[in-house]
């Protein structure tokens, strides 16, 4: 079997001891064996991947260096634009649409020598926490196929957990990388807002969306961040600084670091999950860190604020799917009827629900009471976090309040589904980085994820803690 990590794969391919073509075929064989059951992908691009792997091998043979991800197989969430390759957001409304351009992250990954295996399933337009909202059917959790992989980046998390690809890329608006990473037992990173270019990421909520990696190891996550982060002039919200250097942080240990425990964290996590979190604090303390108690009183209002801000932005971002220029069109006698018919047929229920909520929240007469108030809560949360980070270098919480749940268990209750993101949402609202690292098993022996949160551009310290937890979990 070829290596399971990107670091080892790239090292092997670059040195010529491993062929990219062999790495790819091994992954494609696993896809052939289990994809029908898992449904991680909306599209497997094996022909393009084979051509690409062959090219990598040719370049190595010619003495060239294809880059830090040489021959590493990667699955891309199907809300990242790929030139000439269908990009659907798991929505009927974009079925068949082929973007004329690559997302910035796709360009950077390609330039680093990665091999793209396919486009992964998601909750439609990234709205959901189980990947059940996909117009093309749900993705199953490879660890227990009666359960969801989480969402919205469920396909990417499942692709890594099932070894369909060495690593995957997802997007995180309120937890959409971290929660499925936790439920599938892999590492997932939501970088600082602006650290990774959003150019070519199909927007759900522009002020919250951020692209990040799924990996088996913390080191792989660091490597992926080094490739995809850094300023991009095509995204005005991109932070003007070079790519992060994170692998150098991993061996530094946690001695002297202050690990924050949020004493007023919203309740509701299962006992097994909380036990894993306690064990994580203990493990870090054992490695020389100190645990400090902090308060983040506004944390608990995050969910409410999020479900006004995100739908408000979504209602505007998704208005362009009008049947005029691309994607689905349902013909009708006049323009307004065409809009209605197209959008009624093209969007699923959850997307429509959020468009309605968001439209309402922005409407004249309601703006101040809803959207305006949500913006105030965002500021409150930022203030509370700032106070907490004066005392602690990072904060630890559960990633998800539960382990992977069964299909349909929250399907009829949107609010129950929204609660999945209680612990992940506040960081999106303030733009901070956070990541989920597998740490032990909780209910039913399923994996639990611990979330490490850090202040803006606090990735170096966040990754130090992540490496320490990974080490302790071995």
């Amino acid at each position, binding site marked *: 079997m070829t290596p399971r990590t990107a670091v080892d794969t790239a090292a092997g391919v670059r040195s010529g001891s491993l062929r990219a073509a062999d790495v790819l075929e091994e992954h494609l064989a696993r896809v052939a064996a289990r994809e029908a059951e898992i449904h991680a992908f909306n599209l497997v691009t094996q022909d393009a991947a084979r051509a690409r792997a062959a090219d990598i091998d040719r370049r190595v043979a010619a003495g060239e260096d294809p880059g830090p991800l040489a021959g590493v197989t990667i699955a891309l969430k199907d809300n990242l634009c790929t030139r000439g390759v269908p990009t659907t957001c798991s929505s009927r409304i974009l079925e068949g649409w082929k973007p004329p351009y690559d997302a910035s992250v796709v360009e950077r990954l390609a330039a680093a020598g990665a091999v793209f295996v396919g486009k992964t399933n998601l909750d439609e337009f990234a709205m959901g926490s189980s990947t059940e909202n996909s117009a093309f059917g749900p993705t199953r959790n490879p660890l227990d196929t009666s359960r969801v992989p989480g969402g919205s980046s469920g396909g990417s998390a499942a692709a890594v957990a099932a070894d369909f690809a060495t690593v995957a890329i997802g997007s995180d608006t309120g937890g959409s990388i971290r929660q499925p990473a936790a439920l599938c037992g892999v590492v997932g990173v939501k970088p600082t807002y602006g650290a990774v270019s959003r150019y070519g990421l199909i927007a759900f909520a522009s002020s919250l969306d951020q692209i990040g990696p799924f990996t088996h190891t913390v080191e792989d996550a660091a490597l992926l961040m080094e490739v995809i982060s850094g300023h991009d002039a095509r995204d005005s919200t991109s932070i003007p600084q070079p790519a992060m250097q994170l692998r150098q942080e991993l061996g530094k240990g946690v001695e002297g670091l202050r690990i924050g425990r949020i004493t007023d964290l919203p309740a509701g996590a299962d006992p097994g999950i909380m036990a894993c979190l306690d064990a994580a604090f203990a493990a870090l303390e054992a490695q020389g860190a100190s645990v400090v108690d902090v308060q983040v009183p506004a944390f608990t209002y995050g969910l409410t604020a999020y479900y006004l801000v995100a739908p408000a*932005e979504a209602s505007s971002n998704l208005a362009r799917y009008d049947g005029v*220029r691309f994607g689905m069109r349902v013909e009708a006698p006049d323009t307004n009827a065409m809009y209605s018919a197209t959008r009624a047929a093209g969007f699923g229920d959850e997307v429509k629900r959020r468009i309605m909520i968001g439209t309402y929240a922005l*409407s004249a007469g309601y703006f101040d009471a809803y959207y305006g108030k949500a913006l105030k809560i965002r500021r409150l949360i930022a203030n509370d976090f700032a106070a907490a980070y004066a005392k602690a270098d990072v904060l630890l919480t559960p990633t998800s309040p539960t382990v992977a749940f069964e299909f349909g268990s929250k399907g009829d209750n949107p609010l129950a589904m929204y609660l999945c993101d209680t612990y992940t949402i506040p960081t999106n609202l303030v733009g901070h980085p956070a990541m989920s690292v597998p740490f032990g098993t909780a209910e039913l022996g399923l994996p639990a994820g611990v979330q490490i949160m850090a202040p803006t551009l606090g990735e170096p310290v966040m990754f130090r803690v992540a490496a320490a937890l990974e080490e302790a979990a071995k």
Partner: protein
Amino acid sequence: MSEQIVPGWELVVGLEVHVELATRTKLFSGSPNRFGDDANVHIDPVTLGLPGALPVLNEHAVELAMRVGLALNCRIEPCTFHRKNYFYPDMPKAYQISQYDQPLNLDGFLDLPDGTRIGVERAHLEEDTGKSTHVGGDGRIHGSEGSLIDFNRAGVPLVEIVSRPDIRTVDQAKDYVNELRAILVAIDASDAKMEEGSMRVDANVSVRRPGEPLGTRCEIKNVNSVRSLGRAIEYEARRQVDLLEAGDRIRQETRHWNESDGRTHTLRVKEDADDYRYFLEPDLVPLVPDREWIERVRSAMPVLPAARRASLGAFLGVPAGSAAVWTVVDRGQDEYVLASVDAGGVGERVLVYVQQAFAEAGPNPAVPADGLARLTVMERNGELTATQAKDVLATMLETGSADPETIARSKGYEAMDTSAIAVAVDEAIAGDPAAWGKYCAGEEKAAGALVGRVMKATKGQADGKVVTALLQERRAANG
């Protein structure tokens, strides 16, 4: 007010002017900002609002907008962009990126040539929409068979200049637009052509009894020339006065000016107006022009047309508001006129020639300024008649020549001596005794026929002033 449209009523007008900025590329993408090419050639993912595309602000557009603000005496402020959400097929993202409660330019004014100061509330940046062409029907979307959309214009940078409701007459409204247009062209912000749509004027019109609070306004759209603006405001004011005098109320609405029937028609009433659901554009960051940037733009500002008209008028001793001065400054030819006069030209004649003959010549005419100067001197000295001078000038314009003397010689224009003209005058008197009789009886107009005969006989080479003088001399001798 000097020109009340209906006695006893005061007109109140505020203008919203959209101007396309003369940038090389669009406001948020690298596609060319160009008018008149084939449909849908200046497009890209951002222009089309494709999924995943993001806007990046064009710095040159910001500079031009700052110039507009400075020319209109505005404060330049830290500002933000908002999304204005509404569905329309030529609006690619189904929202327009515009400025809302924090515009770039705030609180300025524009002085009309008559000295009236019109307040400018704001001048903000926003993107243009695409252009729909409705096929079939009367060219409007309702009743058409289909629509074609050209996205070349989508994303073109606009500045929207909003005046305060300080305009009180139709002439002031027209002067405001003319003065604004002159400024925009002078600062290279826009070509500001109403016919091509690079400058679009909407008028908010209301009427009231003098001294009363502002009346309910109607917004008039589809005004495509300064002349139409005057007609539309006048029509709308009368319509409102008629309603009020009949005891009715004005409904706040948007009205469409129809050039062919000379009326305004309801487009939409206020209750049907879109709720634009403005919110801060999350894909852009606040725009905060620092002092250094503002000063750099300010120091590169040219002298504005009003000041140029004043100095040209003062220099030539003619009114700054005269048509000739306005036209010459408008074309940017005032420097040229000054240069020609400096080279010894006859000021009044130089001004007239440039006004009349240099319409296509641009700010740097091919004819050297000293050449024009010498032409006017030859004319003043009687070496050329006015007609001959015009002909020589036409040749100079064609060839870019600086040498009126040679051209005059090659055309055989040498001043006739007075004795030859006298012979022709005597022949004319003999040839039309009836006209001569009338002229001698004091009928000055009768001289026309006699002068005409002289000109015909001399093939236009006689100096008209000399002919008239000779006729007067002979009449005096006759009397």
